[in-house]
């Protein structure tokens, strides 16, 4: 009892109240989540404004005699004449490892009914991206576990790789697969199965999606055991446009904390098309001048400042990284629309998903011709590079020749060989969703493909042969897989072992 009284006494003696000076304004008009306020002569851009009901707003438009502010939360209580005051603070969200495994809203408040978040650290939502001196080039890979991506469009830690495609072409699936694979790798590293692995924490930001879609994503991540390494920031379509506009920045702030503390993080913005639409709404209600497709003039800056925050820091700056996987939805495959071209020009490459391929059964429906990774090859593991070097070219040639071969059956043996190889590569690259491959299995499959071990397997049996080959490696040739993982390059010893293992397998495999 005495200690409680003492504690109370020290708490009370520590409390101080004083006459406070504040800068106030009066709401002139309010609607659609936006308020026009007269006064507030000392307000800063992006400063938080406090309303009497405990509601907060952010000053976005500073005009000669009034301030345009967006409101964060239920604005039905705000009336004309309500007095508001400045706070001197910028909007911040909680950051730290305490957020892992949680689902939060755009303000970092938990919405998963798992209790309060015990983080005492906060980061401002809007932050200037790291400068030139602090950065270094991408050198460590992000293993997505998706064979065509790891082989042909490799992503490095600190890169910004756009996932673009029409609706229902598997954009989110690629992002979720990547998150699941990171969780598997992180767990394997914790268990001591992988050496020299820096954990990659993931942040999934759902903007303007259906609540059901976000719930499904969380469910998938939970079932795959990925939630302990993942933060989900949710701003579904039912949230105000303000929260949808802020959610990606809040997610970026959470990712930056990992980066600034020497850790690696990956952030998925799903999707930026809806983010741009939310920002358009906010801007139009604030009466900002509109431009093409009614987007405001700074819609490019909206995404460039967000994606610039993804970086790989130099050793002196802590050596952390933030990789960004923005998602953009196109209409009828039109990549030349306003927002897609903007984001394509900002990012370091794109993975383009095609509806036609998707319905042909090629899943993931990656269009190899226009998918690129501008910096990722520097980060690709040597072993993968050795076995996948010419795959993209082979596949591109196959697509060209396929068009010609449709008109006649007489093709020269060289062309026939390319066509046969191409159709088998396409089969090999088909992959079930939420089933990422470990890198050593990818190397084994790509090795067998490059050395022509699938050439005598009928095209419709290639997938079966591949699955059995993987099974064979994981059950009977674990030592070879372990050797690949250990060396991460194909030297003479690994090559011989791979050859003998695949030959051994082919000896008893009957298509």
């Amino acid at each position, binding site marked *: 009892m005495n200690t409680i009284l003492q504690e109370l006494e020290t708490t009370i003696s520590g409390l101080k*109240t004083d*006459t406070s000076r504040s*800068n106030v*304004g009066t709401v002139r008009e309010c609607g659609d989540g936006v308020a026009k306020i007269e*006064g507030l002569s000392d307000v800063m851009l992006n400063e938080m404004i406090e309303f009497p009901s405990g509601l907060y707003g952010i000053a976005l438009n500073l005009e000669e005699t009034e301030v345009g502010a967006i409101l964060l939360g239920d604005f039905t209580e705000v009336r004309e004449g309500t007095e508001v005051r400045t706070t001197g603070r910028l909007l911040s969200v909680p950051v730290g490892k305490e957020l892992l495994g949680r689902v939060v809203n755009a303000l970092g408040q938990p919405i998963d009914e798992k209790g309060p978040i015990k983080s005492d650290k906060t980061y401002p939502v809007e932050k200037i991206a790291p400068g030139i001196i602090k950065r270094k080039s991408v050198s460590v890979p992000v293993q997505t576990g998706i064979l065509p991506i790891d082989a042909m469009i490799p992503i490095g830690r600190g890169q910004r790789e756009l996932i673009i495609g029409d609706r229902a072409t598997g954009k989110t699936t690629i992002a979720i697969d990547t998150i699941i694979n990171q969780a598997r790798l992180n767990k394997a590293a914790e268990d001591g199965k992988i050496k020299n692995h820096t954990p990659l924490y993931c942040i999934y930001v759902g903007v303007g999606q259906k609540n059901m879609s976000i719930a499904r994503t969380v469910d998938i991540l939970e079932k795959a055991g990925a939630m302990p390494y993942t933060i989900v920031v949710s701003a579904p379509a039912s949230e105000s446009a303000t929260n949808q506009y802020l959610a990606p920045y809040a997610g970026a702030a959470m990712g930056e904390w990992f980066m600034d503390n020497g850790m690696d993080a990956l952030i998925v913005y799903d999707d930026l098309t809806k983010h741009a639409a939310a920002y358009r709404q906010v801007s139009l209600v604030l009466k900002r001048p509109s431009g093409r497709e009614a987007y405001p003039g700074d819609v490019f800056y909206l995404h460039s400042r967000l994606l610039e925050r993804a970086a790989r820091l130099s050793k002196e700056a802590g050596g952390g990284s933030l990789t960004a996987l923005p998602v953009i939805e196109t209409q009828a495959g039109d990549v030349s629309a306003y927002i897609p071209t903007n984001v394509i020009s900002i990012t370091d490459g794109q993975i383009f998903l095609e509806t036609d391929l998707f319905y042909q059964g090629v899943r993931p429906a990656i269009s190899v011709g226009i998918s690129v990774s501008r910096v990722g090859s520097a980060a690709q593991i040597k072993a993968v590079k050795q076995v996948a070097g010419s795959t993209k070219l082979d596949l591109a040639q196959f697509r060209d020749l396929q068009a010609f071969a449709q008109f006649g059956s007489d093709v020269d043996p060289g062309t026939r060989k390319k066509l046969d190889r191409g159709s088998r590569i396409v089969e090999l690259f088909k992959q079930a969703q939420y089933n990422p491959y470990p890198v050593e299995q990818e190397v084994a499959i790509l090795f067998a493909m490059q050395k022509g071990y699938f050439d005598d397997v009928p095209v419709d049996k290639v997938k079966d042969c591949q699955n059995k080959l993987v099974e064979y490696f994981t059950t009977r040739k674990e030592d070879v897989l372990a050797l690949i993982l250990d060396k991460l390059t194909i030297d003479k010893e690994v090559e011989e072992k791979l050859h003998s293992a695949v030959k051994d397998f082919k000896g008893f495999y009957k298509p």
Partner: protein
Amino acid sequence: MTINESAKKLHGRLPHRVMRTAKEARKVSRQLFRESFRDGKLDEERITQMVQSVLANKPRHYVDVLQDYQRLLRLEQEKRHAVIESASPLNRSVGDQVVNNLKSRYGDDLNIEFRTNPELLGGMRIKIGDDVWDGSVRNRLRQLQEQI
């Protein structure tokens, strides 16, 4: 007639317009506003002259011009308007002391208004333009609440 009264009178003569002030009208009203000062202070004579001239000449969007002009004048007036709120009426000596303090800090041309607001519970709250000095019990309790 004070500026406030003339502004109110002007407001009464103008039809109520919901339409937003046209850009052109805002430009003209700002120009009128800039011309309304003499030695850094609003000049009643000038304001009356300008309003009369606008009403006589009736330029384009003149109603919008006058409405926006009135708003700018009101905002400028509010900058020099001090509201001293207290939970109970202040006695004369305290009131004079506060007024003298404010005038020494903000200048002699302050327009001072005393108000009683029992919601403050105690203490005083002074608002000058957008600045608020809050020493009321209500504010102190709010501060305590935030700290705890």
